[in-house]
């Protein structure tokens, strides 16, 4: 076993391993149940239970991140960074709950709806968190080139969204969308590119300069989570519009992304501890 492996194992607490393991188990269970939901093999009661279970995981994940954020002293920069990520996930969780109430309990079409305000607020708070994090590292490492590369990746990602999704479907004359529908439907794929993928690339290029430094570890989880979120959300938009069919993997994508943020928060708690 390498020294690095021993080092990492001793730095990461049992609590982090336990909570991350529990989250992985809860998400795996959801995925298995969600497969049954999509296969339409569940009774109405079981369908409702699986639906509610999946939605309930998001507030749980948000709670973990906020718990870690509050463990840092008021006024600390790291508290603000993790608080913003926690609020971002909380916004998504609120959006999910509203979506569930509208669709499952009120029988309404939840798209577009007030839920979209909260879903899109995840972008706002996430970008703010990454911006603060990148700025925090600007005294130690180069940030200009990562910002430029992140921006280029964002533009390329938007171009791909335009060719694959916006032009043929969302902006098509026969999309059937009104002005609000076009705006909301455009916001998600463009938001995934500009507010998730691009910041993730920038963040990864910034913390990469820390090499094996432990302070980079939490942010690797955040960057990975943002990429997963962006890809899952974009895949959902494409599948929905292109009619290729929605899958349990897409539902898992949003959960996995936010769970990666939560694991990042737990790792942050560990790497700052000095014994």
């Amino acid at each position: 076993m390498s020294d690095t492996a021993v080092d990492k194992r001793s730095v990461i607490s049992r609590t982090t391993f336990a909570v991350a393991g529990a989250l992985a188990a809860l998400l795996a269970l959801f995925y298995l149940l969600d497969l049954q939901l999509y296969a339409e093999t569940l009774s109405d009661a079981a369908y409702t239970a699986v639906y509610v279970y999946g939605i309930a995981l998001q507030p749980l994940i948000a709670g973990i991140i906020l718990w870690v954020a509050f463990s840092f002293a008021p006024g600390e920069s790291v508290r603000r960074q993790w608080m913003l990520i926690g609020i971002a996930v909380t916004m998504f969780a609120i959006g999910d709950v509203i979506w569930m109430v509208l669709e499952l309990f009120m029988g309404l079409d939840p798209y577009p709806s007030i839920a979209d305000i909260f879903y899109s607020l995840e972008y706002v708070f996430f970008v703010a968190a990454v911006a603060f994090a990148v700025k925090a590292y600007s005294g130690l490492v180069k940030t200009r080139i990562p910002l430029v590369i992140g921006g280029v990746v964002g533009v390329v990602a938007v171009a791909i969204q335009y060719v694959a999704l916006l032009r043929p479907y969302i902006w098509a004359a026969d999309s059937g969308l009104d002005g609000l529908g076009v705006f909301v439907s455009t916001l998600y794929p463009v938001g995934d590119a500009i507010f998730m993928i691009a910041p993730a690339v920038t963040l990864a290029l910034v913390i990469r300069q820390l090499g094996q430094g432990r302070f980079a570890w939490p942010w690797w989880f955040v960057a990975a989570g943002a990429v997963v979120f962006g890809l899952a959300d974009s895949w959902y938009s494409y599948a929905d519009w292109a009619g290729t069919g929605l899958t349990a993997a897409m539902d898992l994508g949003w959960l996995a992304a936010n769970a990666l943020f939560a694991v990042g928060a737990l790792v942050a708690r560990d790497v700052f501890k000095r014994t």
Partner: protein
Amino acid sequence: MPDLRSVTVHVLGPLVGEMVADTCVRATALSLGKTADDLLPEDLPTLEANVRRLLGPIAPTSTIDSLIADIEGGAV
């Protein structure tokens, strides 16, 4: 006795990487008109101020206090 540069890189390296740790030392040396290898124990206050300034935005104060104590313990 290990020099201030080695001690600082040894303490900060595992957390921020050796390159960034060395940046903290070189920034201190630059502000004093010295090279990193010429830093002496009496330069510790300036080094501490630089470490706090550079690491303050990325780590809690208690963590930085502990790191500075380790640097002081290894350098004085």
